[in-house]
């Protein structure tokens, strides 16, 4: 899963530490999400969505490979 967390954080002019404190996680967690090493839970994604005042889809996006799996499944059900 790709994300634009770093960009959204820059728009709000927040450091990793400040963002972490706002949503109640460690700085390590924000760093791991930004580096695509960790996919956050729905709760955390919704918290980020509330903070950025944007829908989740605006800063979290599926990889092309994950989308192609969905297309294959669609074809099978047709």
């Amino acid at each position, binding site marked *: 899963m790709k994300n634009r967390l770093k960009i959204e954080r820059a728009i709000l002019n927040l450091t990793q530490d400040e963002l972490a404190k706002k949503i*109640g*996680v*460690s700085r*390590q*967690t924000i*760093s*791991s999400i930004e580096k695509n*090493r*960790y996919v*956050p*839970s*729905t*709760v*955390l994604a*919704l*918290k980020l969505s509330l903070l950025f005042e944007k829908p989740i889809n605006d800063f979290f996006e599926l990889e092309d490979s994950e989308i192609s799996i969905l297309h294959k499944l669609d074809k099978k059900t047709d």
Partner: protein
Amino acid sequence: MDLKSFMEYERKSLEKMKKYQLPNWFKKIGIGIILISIVAFFVNKFSIEDIDIKLISKYGILVGLLLISISKEKIEDELITSLRMQSYTFSFIAGVIITLLTNPIFNFIANFISQRQGENFQEVGDWEILWILLSVQVFYFEFLKRMNK
């Protein structure tokens, strides 16, 4: 299900994971117990030779490792919960593999060195298995935390 109740449901499911955990300061107590146990073990080995002290110090190491293992981090969030689960899984698999392989490999090497075939040396006991499980979990968890910095 509205957004708030959905978030509440997920938060509660994460909270359940934390119920069996101890506060962060138990980690220091765990380290203290391990250090005292190691010192007692070596003092006993080189001077007194008391079997009770040896046994107590061996189990002290296990209690210390368990306290470190189940103590919370300063900030216990979902990444830490995920890393903790990974480390428990890894330690379980590593523990089973090490236990299965230790006896045949150890016996093979010992037989090879002594040139005597068919002799079985000491088997892996309950203390060794628990020590492997707990120490692999504690060290692998620390390794994962450092990797995610």
